[in-house]
């Protein structure tokens, strides 16, 4: 009721100003009514602002903040596409095509990277081709060994491969028996280095170690059990008896710890009260 009464004078106003506004085209609107519903309920100064847009100012500081969602509308180019054209010479690892998804598939002597990039695995000349025998739809990129070779090769032909290796005299890599050697490198006065002490000496016993200590090398300490002939039992998955005993012991220990904890708590609680 109240709104109806409020709108009535506005309607009159609109009828009076409407034609002039339309001729100026200052407010481009598809709807015939220039007064939106939101404005009807809005206060008077806002309404006057809408009516006279010529007085509105968009300051430079405001504009420089940019438009909303601009990044989704035109993001930076990702530099996708062919990096090597057909017939160009490539070496192994040379990127031929960058793409999103598999627009092209790796053909002969090519492979596909983590982001579907096609790269060469052999040196040769790039070919872009279709292989209807393999797949009716897919486009392939391959590398051909000859400059004027053709791809794809027939399905029943033996595959063409290159060795890409050279023959060199074989070097025996005999795993040398690990000689005793000191494990620390530190210079001590009068120019003797721990590491320069001969291996035989290092094994013989305690040496002067950094920190001015006469002791055995760490690796020797680590082998004490071995020297003493103490051997741990080989772990066997199937030894359920041992497993049961271990489990039992662990449970007992846990129970003991728990009881101790409870005792502590109980004593604390008592003390608090």
């Amino acid at each position, binding site marked *: 009721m109240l709104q109806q009464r409020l709108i009535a004078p506005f309607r009159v106003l609109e009828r009076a100003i409407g034609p002039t506004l339309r001729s100026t085209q200052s407010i481009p609107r598809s709807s015939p009514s220039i007064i939106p519903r939101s404005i009807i309920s809005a206060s008077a100064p806002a309404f006057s602002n809408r009516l006279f847009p010529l007085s509105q100012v968009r300051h430079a500081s405001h504009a420089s903040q940019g438009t909303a969602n601009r990044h989704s509308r035109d993001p930076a180019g990702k530099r996708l596409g062919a990096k090597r054209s057909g017939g160009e010479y490539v070496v192994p690892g040379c990127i031929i095509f960058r793409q999103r998804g598999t627009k092209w598939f790796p053909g002969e002597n090519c492979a596909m990277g983590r982001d579907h990039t096609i790269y060469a695995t052999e040196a040769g000349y790039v070919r872009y081709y279709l292989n209807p025998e393999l797949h009716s739809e897919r486009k392939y990129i391959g590398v051909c060994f000859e400059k004027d070779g053709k791809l794809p090769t027939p399905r029943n032909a033996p595959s063409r491969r290159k*060795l890409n*290796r050279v023959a060199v*005299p074989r070097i025996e890599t005999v795993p040398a028996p690990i000689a005793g050697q000191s494990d620390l490198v530190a210079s001590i006065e009068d120019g003797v280095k721990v590491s320069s002490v001969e291996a035989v000496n290092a094994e013989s016993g305690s040496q002067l170690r950094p920190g001015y200590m006469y002791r055995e090398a760490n690796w020797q300490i680590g082998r004490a059990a071995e020297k003493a002939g103490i051997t741990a039992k080989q772990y066997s998955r199937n030894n359920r008896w041992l497993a049961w005993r271990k489990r039992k012991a662990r449970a007992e220990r846990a129970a003991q710890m728990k009881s101790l904890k409870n005792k502590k708590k109980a004593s604390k609680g008592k003390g608090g009260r």
Partner: protein
Amino acid sequence: MAHCERAAKPLLQCLQKSYTKGLPGLQVQATRAFQTTAIAREEAQTETKSQPFHKSPDPALVSSPRLERRLLRQGISPIGSRRRRAALETSPNIPFEQLPYQCFQEARNILQADREEKLKDIVTIREKIARLEAVPTEQAGGLQVKNSKLVAMNLHLDHLKVLADVNDPLVKKKFEDGQGDMSKPIYRYLADKKWREYRRKILVQRITQMKVIPDVLPHCDPVVDTKLYFGRTATQPGEFVNSRVSATTPKLDVQLFERGEKLVTIAVVDSDIPNVEKDGFDYRTHYLAVNVPISATSTKVDLSKLSSESQVVLPWMAPTAQKGSPYHRLSVFIMEQKDAKPLNVADIKAKETDRSKTLRTLQARYHLKAIGAHLFRTQWDETMEEVMRENGYSDVDMELRRKRVEPLPYKRRNPSTFR
């Protein structure tokens, strides 16, 4: 009345009824079997009463893994699945004909009737074939027409032979126990089906993925089941075999699923011999034997025991792989000779002295057709050096290293667009 007794009441009634009208001897057995245990087992127990079961386990009834292992160590493999053996242990083992289940017996009757029908069909088609063979070629409409008719009828006959037995539970049981007679078409059919279900698929996948098929031969459709043994261990298709192991001549088990005997050529080819001068790969034939007879019943072929005069053309050569070379694929091909005719060994021996010839030329020259394949691989290992020295390979002391690839020169491309 206890539950079990109440449940068994109809069974007992049925047995008593049949006892009055059926054969007395059989029914005595059946009732006994129902009340106590199996007759077969009783007999077995009376024979070996002195020994308990765990001392001498029965391969048809053993179900605990420990006893199974003991049997296997003795060289006896347990029969059927463990689940079945466990079930048999507690079952009364009544024969099918005497099982007191009405629906089961009705179903058996239907199957029996179907079998009778199939047998009748077999007789009629045999008569038809005989009649057609008696007709002279001109009246039958030419040689080609007659032959095609005969072939079609024979195929139908084989199919009927399979259909007659395919629903028989005893046949199925025998096949599953590995006691099937491969001279009978039904067992050949079942074995072929089983092979095609898994093992053939694996084989075809291996030989195509590892590119044996276009590299060694242009095409191969395996129809015989081939197993390869070094010593006593079977090799899976495509497995890496230790060089010391593969230095011995392997054995083959070639299972044919067709009737009749075939003469085959067996070739073992290495398609990855590195050739540094050529910057590529060569072939080497490691073994070649011709005129090897195989049939559905005689499947074992020991490559070392084939006669060196009449069969072996190129004896076994230990497969090797030079250090640093990519793995070597050694493919075994079983190739059928045309019309099962023997080849002239003396001629072939004179001609095929070169081991580096490809299998394609051999195939074309002697009209061979690949019917079976197998594959194993070899690579550099600890024993390879010894094996190579023993067999006199010259390239033991050389190692293959990757060639350095020269990078492309940096080229500024179209500088006007760079800003």
